């Protein structure tokens, strides 16, 4: 899929294709080389399992400031432990264990961003239910944009909610206003 998208991007850019930087792909190469080189006694599956339980328990349906903060710290610890795993298979040909190792890093990254965003949103809205902040608040009427340049270094930005249908005053526009969704 990624390859296909890349090919289409190249096609559509045609002659405007910029010069590629000299170290193109280097980051991926060194990342995968580090997976193959790293050693340690930690178990990949165990870390994955622990992160799954952690996310269900502390970043699941009902969330609290304490639980989310603990989850952030626990995820940082899991990330450190992940660096101490040894791959049994070092091959580059169809190596599911290598993919699993990469996947674990991605899972931990997404988990951490999710926890940090949930921690920041001190309100309850839709599927995000904070037991310590059960009310919806207008100050949070925006989409959160998260950027993570290095693990656990998360920058939070905002994007306004698209209200164009409501503001267009077209037929039934009033149904697209901002209201509290509740039972």
């Amino acid at each position, binding site marked *: 899929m990624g390859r296909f998208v890349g090919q289409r991007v190249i096609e559509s850019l045609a002659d405007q294709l910029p010069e590629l930087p000299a170290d193109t792909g280097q980051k991926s190469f060194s990342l995968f080389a580090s997976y193959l080189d790293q050693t340690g006694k930690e178990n990949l*599956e165990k870390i994955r399992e622990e992160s799954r339980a952690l996310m269900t328990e502390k970043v699941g349906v009902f969330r609290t400031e304490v639980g989310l903060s603990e989850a952030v710290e626990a995820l940082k610890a899991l990330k450190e432990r992940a660096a101490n795993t040894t*791959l049994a298979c070092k*091959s580059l*040909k*169809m*190596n*599911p264990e290598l993919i699993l190792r990469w996947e674990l890093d991605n899972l931990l990254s997404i988990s951490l961003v999710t926890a940090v965003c949930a921690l920041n949103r001190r309100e309850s809205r839709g599927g995000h239910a904070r037991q310590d902040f059960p009310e919806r608040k207008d100050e949070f009427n925006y989409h959160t944009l998260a950027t993570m340049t290095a693990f656990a270094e998360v920058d939070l930005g905002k994007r306004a909610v698209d209200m164009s249908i409501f503001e267009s005053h077209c037929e039934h526009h009033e149904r697209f206003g901002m209201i509290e969704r509740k039972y």
Partner: protein
Amino acid sequence: MQETYQIVSKIQRYDPDNDRSWIQNYQLETGRILQFTDLFRKINKELDPTLAWNSSCEHGQCGTCSVKINGKPMLACELLVENAVVHFETTEFLIEPLTIAPVVRDLIVDFDKAYERVHKIKPYIIEPVANPNSGNEYKIAPGHLQRYVDATRCINCFCCATACISSHHNFLGPNAIMASVVRLMDLREQAKDERKTLLYSEEGVYRCHTSRACSFVCPKEIDVAHFIALAKSGALESDA
């Protein structure tokens, strides 16, 4: 019924780096309700992280996890431990990769290679006829659709092609043949001659030995052999 089973999986392995193949035994205690894909996952987790296998949807809709279990090609995700014990009357399972394409590693075969045959028959409408119901959907009478609608449920898991007793080298294989037959029966297709040329060629339907192994193993319970038989008798376009 027992609560747990002691399962012995004898898995055909292949290491592409050293071009070495062997059969490896894994012994596991499992619950009754466990898919074979989860059995592989359990092996990865508890016994051997290097065992390579393939899956995608894990609910019998994509055809990625097909393997041979005690000789029978089937979807690993559709087979539960308990049902397997009943069906094969044993707790020992020989698990091998499909035989329709070269093995990449362990239970994973080169699906690109396998799909070459399907692509060859062009599993789409090559030349659509003008839609008499222009601007709307093309209408096909339910009675007509009924003749081939079963065949459209094929997921190209290649179980039939693996079970097929005809040659894998010069036969298009049951699933590819059936995909072409579907389009021959499809009123929207104009390129019937192009399809027939390939269907009745050296690698076409006459390679079929009518063993009906394809129908026997199909996880989607499609009577594949029926569609090949229709092609053999030329009964593709009549509404009979």
